[in-house]
């Protein structure tokens, strides 16, 4: 059982639940208390000790169900019939057994243990043999789906396939009907082993496969990801948001040791006649970021803006105040749509209002200055996300200068590579003079770094 629990911990880690050694010790102690006979209680006990959040509980619950549902040794159709025959033969008292079936009912001596086991149809013994062979072949090391074949053959080898082959050759000569049965049983065994390996892959390799997929996704250009990947990307963005939240939602007051707050100290010690028993220190307040985001939603930039807005708006704990604006040929505020609707609905609503136009940075900036300039304070970081391709219309960089002067920082995120800036109708160099930071932002990873840096300036 201990062995099984250890394998379960590995599987749990594979499912994305962080199981530390200390937690596994706790789980062991808990299992020793509740025992293993009642599966529901065992499940509760493991969930209580190992999972530390609601998400982890769900993942671990699934993992538990998968882990403790070992695939049943499979019986093929002809095999089942043969088994019936055999069962009938065995049901009758051995003394009255029919002569024709006597040979099949009792496997002849001199066969290897695996052949004996297969012929006697002992399901439990077969399942146990597969389990121990999986252990010997260290199935829990499986990482990629391409390894399925090699692990299957390793398990079969460990079970004694070589000996079985010899037996099979020998039987074909001496007892063809029995050989036929054995061959069918072997096929069934192969399939069971394959199922076991697939289950092992699902249990132990999930983390690895997910890491690989996420790694690829993180570095894929956001503007060109396929439709089926959008949901995965949203999940990834949420993950990034969680990581940023954990990193930056630390307390915002910090004591400055060494700077006595005389006023508060005197007040606090009034009861002791002003003798300073309790000291109060000056505190430094840290602002939470205030962000104003201007997002280009035309053409190829739209997808990047979508993910960017999703990220910014899932940072509630870290960011105090976000105002978002979307534009292509004119500019509108979209904060409320994003707060109240699901990401998909919000995005389609924004697109129907301002999307798909040809972008006009000049008139969009005019819109912003006319209506929303008052949202900027000296604590605000303004983030502009766009390719700065203004279709040769007036870029109105003077407005950008005024925005920059009124705000703490002006950050420009451009999905295009640096090489393309300034070529064609790109106004990037002209805008860049007024920006505190200009950076490329085409992949999820770059997006994460950009937002992380912006938030970090407030710490």
């Amino acid at each position, binding site marked *: 059982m201990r062995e099984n629990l250890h394998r379960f911990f590995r599987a749990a880690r594979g499912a994305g639940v*962080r199981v*530390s050694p*200390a*937690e596994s010790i*706790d789980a062991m*102690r*808990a299992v*020793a*208390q*509740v*025992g*293993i*006979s*009642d599966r*529901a*209680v065992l499940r*509760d*006990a493991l*969930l*209580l*000790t190992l*999972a*530390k*959040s*609601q998400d982890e*509980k769900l993942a671990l619950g699934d993992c538990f169900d998968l882990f403790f549902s070992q695939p049943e040794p499979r019986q093929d159709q002809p095999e089942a019939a043969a088994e019936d025959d055999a069962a009938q033969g065995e049901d009758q008292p051995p003394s009255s057994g029919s002569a024709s079936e006597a040979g099949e009912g009792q496997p002849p001596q001199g066969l290897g243990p695996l052949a004996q086991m297969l012929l006697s149809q002992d399901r439990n013994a077969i399942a146990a043999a597969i389990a121990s062979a999986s252990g010997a072949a260290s199935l829990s090391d499986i990482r990629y789906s391409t390894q399925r074949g090699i692990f299957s053959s390793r398990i079969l080898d460990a079970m004694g396939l070589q000996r079985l082959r010899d037996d099979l050759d020998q039987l074909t000569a001496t007892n063809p009907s029995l050989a036929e049965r054995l061959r069918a049983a072997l096929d069934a065994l192969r399939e069971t082993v394959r199922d076991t390996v697939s289950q092992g892959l699902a249990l132990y390799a999930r983390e690895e496969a997910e890491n690989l997929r996420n790694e690829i996704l993180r570095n894929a250009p956001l503007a060109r990801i396929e439709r089926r990947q959008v949901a995965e990307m949203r999940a990834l963005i949420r993950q990034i948001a969680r990581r940023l*939240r*954990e990193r930056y*939602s*630390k*307390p915002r007051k910090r004591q400055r040791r060494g700077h006595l707050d005389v006023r508060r100290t005197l007040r606090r010690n009034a*009861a*002791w006649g002003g*003798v300073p*028993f*309790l000291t109060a220190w000056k505190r430094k307040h840290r602002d939470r970021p205030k962000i104003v985001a201007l997002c280009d939603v035309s053409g190829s930039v739209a997808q990047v803006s979508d993910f960017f807005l999703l990220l910014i708006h899932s940072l509630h*704990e870290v960011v105090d105040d976000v105002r978002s604006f979307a534009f292509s040929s004119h500019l509108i505020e979209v904060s409320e749509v994003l707060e109240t609707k699901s990401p998909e609905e919000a995005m389609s609503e924004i697109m129907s209002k301002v999307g798909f136009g040809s972008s006009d940075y000049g008139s969009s900036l005019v819109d912003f200055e006319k209506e929303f300039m008052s949202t900027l304070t000296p604590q605000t970081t303004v983030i502009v996300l766009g390719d700065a391709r203004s279709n040769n219309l007036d870029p109105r960089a003077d407005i950008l200068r005024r925005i920059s002067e009124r705000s703490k920082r002006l950050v420009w995120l451009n999905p295009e590579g640096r090489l393309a800036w300034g070529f064609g109708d790109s106004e990037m160099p002209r805008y860049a003079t007024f920006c505190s930071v200009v950076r490329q932002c085409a992949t999820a990873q770059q997006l994460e770094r950009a937002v992380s840096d912006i938030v970090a300036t407030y710490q």
Partner: protein
Amino acid sequence: MADQKASTSIEAVESGLAAQGYIASRQIATAVYLSQQIEKPILVEGPAGVGKTELAKAIAAWRGKKMIRLQCYEGLDEAKALYEWKYAKQLLYTQILKDKLGEVLGGAQTLHAALDQLHDFGDVFFAKEFVEPRPLLQALEQPGGCVLLIDEIDKSDAEFESLLLEILSDFQVTIPELGTVSAITPPTVILTSNSERDLGDALKRRCLHLHIGFPEQRLEERIVESRVPGISQTLRRQMVGFIHEIRSLDLKKLPSVSETIDWARVLVLLQASELDTEIVKDTLNVLLKYEADIEAATPQVTTFIAKAARSNVFG
């Protein structure tokens, strides 16, 4: 054999809590049983009003132990949670000391001899008598053990979590001037959190993690039955069914168990025998706490009542 004992013990926990009017699900009972057996605190998470605090009260009442409660809030520090020196008493003590100093040191000829004599008195100034125990220290000092409820830990600062770590893992605290104070009997510790912020891994690691969500319909009916005995069975079924329908809506704040109980009390007071549109609309403000939520739910009331009634027939 151990398994047998465990499952009967878990049932004993369930019935023990039920005797105090707390209807626990199997999972809650398992958590309470395990925390007792392997001496670990329970961290209870879940939406507001599902009975997290109530669980601690029920355990205390069931085991006949004192409950010590520490309500967390932003700015809570060790002087309010752990211990504080009785400064006024210390001040008084120095005054007395000043008067008596001449008598005590009367025999001493040199300054050196006087200091030696003073050292013989020991360090009375930072002695146990001057410590004002706050909830955490009180909990450790209970000779018969107690239930320590650290309520809404997510409201406190992150530094405060670190302060708790020593208590949670070893049931002891270290006071620099006095040394380490260990628990006489390890208290049963319950921490509750509304998940306003993510707690640190170090804290989570030291606890059993229990999530209490909204109960299933049957369980909630039993809870109402135990808390509001005066309500008739049909009405109970209808109202719990209705609340389950309401929870399927997308609202700002979903009604939780405490709201269910309040509503049941209101319905009993109004002497309703069964749900109808009129009475639900009049009392909807007991269930829903936001104007927008009430507006969203009102058009659905009739359908929900019908649905709840239908599920009664089959269920």
